[in-house]
Each structure stands twice: as structure tokens, then as C-alpha cells.
């Protein structure tokens, strides 16, 4: 049973990893679309838009999947998080609803209006930053156990510099991940102007993200239980930093064939590895608690029958979903640029 709980936790954390990348690209692209919608940088806006329109719904399903897996594997954790996140969770939902709805309303217009771009772009910018704020909450210190129930101490949450460091990290990570990814996407589509713009954006956001991340984890004091465990993961942090550096190099490495410098596909791979190591490091440090000190994976774990049931349905679902997704990817991302809003 114990090992099943650990396995379920690892699986959940893996899903979070995928969503962190896919969601960052999705939200970030919406933001870049807004930024680059000006005269002269329209190509970049269009690259971003042609990524967003096919993929945002599929990305949203992933978020629902994480919620469902949390409820299925760790009902008690869903219970406590549900209770304490009423306010921040509702605000997040509100922003997500605005963004998603106005993205699809935009289909009805030949060209999205400035209003649609601002609503979707600005909400998309803040959503991932707020999502990341769940991490410091899970580190402990902001949730109280009063009587029979749990309360989020909003006051200490909002006055904690650490929380802001996490939020800044979420923001910069979103920009870095999406810009790196879109630079490769622009390259595939043969769009050099857009490629240059996204490359510059990625090079600015990357180092900023590293600084914000180091501040959140190490410069500002972590809760005692976590600090030592975080330091113990040092090889993973070092690996992460190395891949970060490599991804920067890959973006600017000169090419001999006369095309603009940089190997964006390589940069994307390096970036993925960088995140994988960092995500693993944080996850391993955090593993004993889903929410310190109240919820451990063992204690929140569902029954064995349900665990097996959910696992089986997940595997079967993936058998259907993955091929469909591959088709989608080949049609829209790897293939020639589609015309937006064909109906």
C-alpha cells in the first residue's frame, strides 16, 4: 500500500510536469500574441496564434485530468486543498474562464479584435503565476487546522516575500518556456522574423527565471523540514543549471549555412531536460508531504480497488488519446501552417 501511494504520487507529479510545460507554452503563446500584435511584429503574433488555437482545449483537458487524478488517488488531499483554496481557486477559475471563452469567441471574428487580445493575453500572463502559488502553500506555514477544518491564512500568505518569489518564478518560467518553444516553432514554419523575436524574449526570460527560482528556493528561507531536503538534491540542481546554460548556447550558436544563428530544436530539448531535473529535485524534496504537516501521501491515499480502477482507466484512455493527439500534432504543429478559423 505504501509503495502504491508513492507510485501514485510520482504519477501525479509527472502529470504536473507535462502540464507545467504544455500549459506554459499555451498561456505564454496567448500572451506573446498580445505583445506582438503590433505593426511590424505581426508574424510573431501569428506564429503564437496558430499554436494556441488548435491546442488550448487539449491543454485544458490536462488540467482537468490532474484534478481528477488527485481526487481519484488522494481524496483526502482533494478535500483539504478544496477547503483552503476556495478563494484563490475561484479567482483562478474566473481568469481561466475569461481567457478560454474569449479565445473561442475570437473564432467568430475574421481577425481577433484588440479587446479579445487584451482579455486573453493579460489573463494568460497571470494564470500560471498564480498556479505556482500552490507550491509555497504546500510547503506549509499558511494553512491552519482549526477545530474540524482547515483554513488558509490569507494575510500571512499575501505578506510573505517567498510567495512573491514563487509567483515571479511562475511568470518568468511561463515566458521562458513559451518563447523557447515558439522560437523553434517559428523556425519550423520558416518564419525568420518571428524566430528572432522569440529568441530574444527567451534569452531575457531564462536568466530571470533562474534568479527568481533560486530566490524562491534558496535565498529566502524555506521551512525547516524542506530546507535540508532541498539541499540534499544538489546534483539535480546542478544538472538543471547546466542544461539551462546549454539551452541558451543552443539558441545563439552560429550556423555555417548562412541562416540565422541558433539551433532552436536543441534549445527546446535542453530546456525540457532542465525542467525535468528541477521538477524532479523539488518533487523528491517534497515527497513526504502533499501538504505540510497535515497530509502525507500514505494517509491521503484512496483504497486499493479504486487505485487499480483509476490506473486502468488512465492507461486505456491514453491508448485512445495519444494517437489522436499525434494526428493533431502532425496536422497543426509539425505540418504546414493551417489557415486559422476555416469555418
Amino acid at each position, binding site marked *: 500500500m505504501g509503495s502504491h501511494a508513492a507510485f501514485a504520487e510520482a504519477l501525479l507529479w509527472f502529470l504536473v510536469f507535462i502540464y507545467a510545460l504544455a500549459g506554459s507554452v499555451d498561456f505564454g503563446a496567448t500572451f506573446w500574441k498580445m505583445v506582438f500584435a503590433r505593426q511590424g511584429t505581426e508574424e510573431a503574433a501569428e506564429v503564437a496564434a496558430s499554436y494556441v488555437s488548435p491546442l488550448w482545449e487539449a491543454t485544458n483537458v490536462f488540467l482537468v485530468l490532474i484534478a481528477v487524478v488527485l481526487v481519484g488517488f488522494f481524496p483526502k488531499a482533494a478535500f483539504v486543498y478544496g477547503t483552503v483554496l476556495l478563494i484563490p481557486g475561484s479567482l483562478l477559475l474566473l481568469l481561466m474562464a475569461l481567457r478560454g471563452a474569449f479565445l473561442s469567441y475570437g473564432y467568430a471574428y475574421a481577425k481577433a479584435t484588440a479587446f479579445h487580445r487584451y482579455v486573453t493575453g493579460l489573463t494568460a500572463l497571470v494564470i500560471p503565476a498564480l498556479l505556482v502559488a500552490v507550491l509555497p502553500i504546500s510547503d506549509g506555514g499558511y494553512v491552519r487546522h482549526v477545530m474540524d477544518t482547515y483554513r488558509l491564512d490569507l494575510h500571512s500568505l499575501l505578506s510573505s516575500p517567498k510567495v512573491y518569489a514563487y509567483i515571479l518564478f511562475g511568470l518568468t518560467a511561463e515566458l521562458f518556456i513559451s518563447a523557447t518553444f515558439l522560437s523553434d516553432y517559428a523556425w519550423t514554419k520558416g518564419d525568420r522574423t518571428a524566430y528572432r523575436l522569440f529568441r530574444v524574449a527567451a534569452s531575457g526570460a531564462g536568466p530571470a527565471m533562474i534568479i527568481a527560482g533560486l530566490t524562491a528556493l534558496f535565498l529566502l528561507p524555506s521551512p525547516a523540514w524542506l530546507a535540508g531536503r532541498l539541499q540534499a538534491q544538489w546534483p539535480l540542481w546542478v544538472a538543471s543549471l547546466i542544461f539551462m546554460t546549454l539551452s541558451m548556447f543552443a539558441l545563439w550558436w552560429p550556423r555555417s549555412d548562412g541562416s540565422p544563428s541558433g539551433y532552436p530544436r536543441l534549445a527546446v530539448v535542453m530546456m525540457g531536460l532542465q525542467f525535468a531535473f528541477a521538477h524532479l529535485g523539488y518533487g523528491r524534496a517534497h515527497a513526504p508531504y502533499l501538504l505540510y504537516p497535515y497530509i502525507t501521501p500514505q494517509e491521503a491515499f484512496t483504497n486499493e480497488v479504486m487505485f487499480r480502477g483509476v490506473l486502468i*482507466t488512465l492507461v*486505456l484512455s491514453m491508448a485512445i488519446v495519444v494517437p489522436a493527439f499525434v494526428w493533431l500534432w502532425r496536422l497543426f504543429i509539425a505540418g504546414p501552417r493551417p489557415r486559422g478559423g476555416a469555418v
Partner: protein
Amino acid sequence: MWSRALFGMSLGFHIVFATVGVGLPLMVALAEVLALRRQDPYYRAMARRWAAAFSVFLGAGVVSGTIVAVQLSLLWPTFMRIVGQIIALPFAIEVSAFFIEAVFTVIYVLAGHMIPAGWRIFSAFAVALGAAGSAVLITDVNAFMNTPTGFRLEGGQLTDIHPWRAMFNPSMPSEISHVLATAYMTVAFVLAGFACWGLGRVTSDEVRAYHARALSLSMAVASAGAFLTALTGDGSGKFLAAVQPLKFAAAEGLFRTTSHAPLVIGGFPDAVTQTVRGGIEVPGMLSWLATGNRNGTVLGLQEFPRSEWPPLFVHLLFDVMVVIGGLALFVSALYWFFRLRRFSVPPHGLRTAVMAMGPLMFLGIEAGWVFAEIGRQPWTITGLLKTSDAVTSSSAYVTPLFFLFLGLYAVLAAGAAFALRRYVVTHPLPDFLHAAGLGVHHAVAVKGGELG
């Protein structure tokens, strides 16, 4: 209290878009099939136009669904804790239905013109299947709430848990079939209404040809849906009478256990006098509905402790739904009556009636859901979890959230209306048909909406 209001509002909003999401892709797929089978480009134009409406609505459906899913954890944390232990499977399977729907919607809508017709039809049906799957699976959770099975309760602990048995609970067949039938009927009537509207302001032969086809197709589906709705609704009623007699008694406003019980249509149940004030009585009819026999015995509210009675106004909700179901059958019958007498365009009065059915359908859906939910009170999960125990303990914050979400839904609804309007203005039907290679004369530009 506010938690219930907030959640009810979110669901009430979601259900509108969800119903469109279930029904519209099927109509698109059927139009695609007709386009291919009859080699008739009007149907292809129809499919594209309906698909445009679908992609506008889908966004609101997806985000309101995400809200409902997360609010379920935020507002009813205790409920979700039980769900996670017993009935998490439908939720888990549902995610793949969402995924199928999302992926194939994109393929159909954005790449439909780039892939062969066969694959296009396949994609359209995949969307319809994904949407139906979403509806089936979530409704299954609701069915579990009505008739929970697959576990035992021992000293406050859940034991002997069988997730699959919980999933295939007794209400499942009747509830799911009824929800699907009503969703298809609803969307078909709405489209038929648009077609009738368009037939009232025809500007060219092509426009008339288009609307006439749209009307035939949607009335065929609407009539079949109306028939199935009555059939499955009757099934649900018989099921309730047998398995949840208290809910059934509340639906009918029946206080005393009676054989040869009359059906009372309308009227307000009065708990003090234990009678229904006003209302039309049909002798013996209720016994017949509940048991299939005019002398059958139907249990009354008096058989149950007063503290377990749901609010008695659910009787009215139930009647609203049933009356609308009756109207749907009546309007369908009239339509076929004129059709068989070779009216190519139905008379004005009937067209107006069909147009009125669209909004009434949504009223019926909302009434049906509110009946199903309130009729279960005071329980959230019958016999297992009381609503008062399921609710969040952070309730002090819920009131402002209610108004925040009220504002959000107003914005989303207005945005959807503007977007549809915008689409119709920028793609007026005559131009649209023209672009599809149909006809050239569109002398009078048509103002206003005709998505039909």
C-alpha cells in the same frame, strides 16, 4: 445556502452550453453524411455553418465545465472525499471523452477542408461521441448520487468498495438515456426554430432551399428526440416510483398512499392541508404511469418522515418539464401532418410554434435538473451524505464569490451572443452559400441572424 446557490448557478449555466455541445456535433455529422450521400452541397454549407456556431459555444462549455469540476471540490469538499473513494471512475473515464471531443473538434473545424470527406465525417462523429460520452459519464455520477451502490457503511466507515458496481448503479440506464434524448431533441428544435425564422424572410431560391433542408433534417431529429424523451421520461418515472418513491410522491404532490391514484397536473402542494391546491386531476392516471396498471398502489409522502421530504414545489418543476415534453410531441405531430400533406413550407403559425420550442427546451432541461437535484434534498448522496454536511466550511467567503461568478456568467453569455451575431453579420447566408458555389443572385442582403 450561498454555496448551493453558487453551485446551482454554475451548473445551470454549464448545462446550457453542455447540451448544445452534446447535440450540435451530431447535427453537424448528420449534415455531413447527407452532403456525401446525396452529393448535395447545401448540406455541406449547413454543416460548416453549424460547426462555426459549435466552435463559438465550445469555449464557454469547456470553461464552465472546468469551473463546475473545480467548484465541486471547492464547495463540496466532503462530497469529493467520498467521490474519490467510491465513484471516481466515471470522472477518470470522462477525461478521455473530453480529450476526444477537443482533439477532433480542432481537426474537424480547422482542418476539415484539408482532409478527405470520409475522415471529415469520422471526425464529426468522433466529436459527437466524445460529447455524448462526457454527458453519459457525468450524469452517471449524478445517478450514483440518487441511488448509491457499490459499498457498505460500517460504523461511519466505507468498506467493501466496488467502483464498477458504483458506476453501474440502478439509476444509470434511465437517467442517461433521458439526458441524451433531451439533449438531441433540444438542439434539433433550436435549429428547426432558426430554419423557420429564415423561411419567414427568404430572399432567394437558394436561401429557401437551404432553410427547407435544414428544417427537414432538424425536425426529423427533433421528432425522434421528442418520442424518445417521452419514452425515457416515462421510464425514469416508473423507476422513481419503484426505487425512490419519496421523490416520486413529491414530484406528483401525492400525500396519501392510494390505489387508483389520480394524476394532478399543476397546482400547488400544501403541506398543511396535505392536498394540492388547484391543478387538473386525471383519475387513475398516476397509478397507470407509476405501475402500468390503473389500480396500482402509489406510495404517498405520508409514508416517510417529514424531515426527509424535499421542498414540495418540485411538483411544479416536474410538471413544467412534462408539459414541455408534451408540447414537443404535439408540435412534432403537427409538423408531420403538414409535411405529409406536401406543404413545402409549414404555415406561419406552426413556424412560430417551432421557434418557441427552442427556448422552452432549455426551460425544460433546467426544470428537469433542478427537480432531480432539489427532489433529492435533504440528501446530496441519498442516505449517505446530507447536503448540510457536504458543504464547505469556508462558507463565509461564498457570498461575494456568488456575485463575482454571476458577473462572469453575464460577461460570458454576452460575449457568446456578440460573437454569434458577429459571425452572422460577417458571413450573411446568401454570401455564404455563394462562396460555397450555390447560386449567384443575392439581390437583397439579409439583415440579422440566420444561423439556421
